[in-house]
């Protein structure tokens, strides 16, 4: 069994990895809850408008805003450590890269020519 010297424990303690003890107030949850319901109404309403190519763009944009609200407030990422923020951001970044590369391959093939 390795033993932590008091010094080591101290170093671990001062690393900026620990959860902040921030408790999100129910008021903020309520506001986000209202915003999410509003977003749902907006996305249904927008789907009935003739926006051409912007219909799916508006739908995805509203969904992204709702997702970001959930992630930042319900999932506490706004109040989390930099490690958590970096993890979440890296995950979504990787996801975007994978989707982009898939679509790049899909669009750049000579469909029907081989």
């Amino acid at each position, binding site marked *: 069994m390795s033993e932590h010297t008091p010094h080591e424990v101290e170093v671990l303690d001062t690393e900026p990895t620990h959860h902040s003890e921030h*408790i999100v107030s129910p008021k903020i949850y309520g506001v986000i809850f209202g915003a999410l319901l509003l977003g749902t109404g907006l996305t249904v309403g927008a789907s009935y408008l003739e926006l051409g190519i912007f*219909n799916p763009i508006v739908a995805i944009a509203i969904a992204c805003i709702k997702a970001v609200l959930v992630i930042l407030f319900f999932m506490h990422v706004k109040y989390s450590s930099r490690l958590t923020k970096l993890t*979440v951001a890296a995950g979504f970044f990787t996801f975007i890269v994978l*989707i982009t590369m898939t*679509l790049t391959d899909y669009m750049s093939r000579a469909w029907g020519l081989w």
Partner: protein
Amino acid sequence: MDSQAIATQPVHGHDEHAAHPPYLRHHFATVEQQRETASFGMWLFLLTEIMFFGGMFAAYLIYRNWYYPAFVAGSHQLSIFLGTFNTAVLICSSFTMAMGVHAAEMKWRKPLVGWLLATIVLGCVFLGVKADEYHEKWEKHHVPGLNFSVQDFTHPSAQYKEEPPLPMDMAQKTQVYFSLYFAMTGMHALHMVIGISILLVLVVRAWGGAYTHGHMTTIENFGLYWHFVDIVWIFLFPLLYLISRHQ
């Protein structure tokens, strides 16, 4: 070889360490570090879930581009009312879960049990509506592979008379839409079933005070899972239910 020492509990007891709460594992220096580690691990798991659902979203994206008229016709068979209702139910359940996490943070035992129960009820309402929608799909012969007919798409009924009839080859492609519909909402529903099962255990343990006397990392991390499932639905709803509703 020191394998024996690894396999068994260390014989020296707590008295050799500084005093610490019973829920602080020995390999962590502080409760905050333990909490952060658990949260980090939970997020890594959720990232794998993003990739899992992401594969289906990528398939959806490409097939929607290929067979757009079939996707429009398939989407118009879904009930906007039920979809919107279920979205609202799921958002409510995310709110009750967030309030449950707050109750756990405040060490309020009964409110925690109440919020968790509310989350279970809302989750069950969602699944009930989903089951009703699946049942309707079965009755309308819109289940690819098991019970499917292109009749509604080649010869739209009077109820859908504004829908243009699709040529046979495109009408067949509505099966791609419904396959993705069942795959995506089915995997989402499976996550809900798993979530509700875990919630039942959490409620019993919360009633016994497990999270209000000990630490609430479990509640916090389960909240992350539940909100993630909500986020998946936030994207599924417009993509599956709301394609070209203005037509």
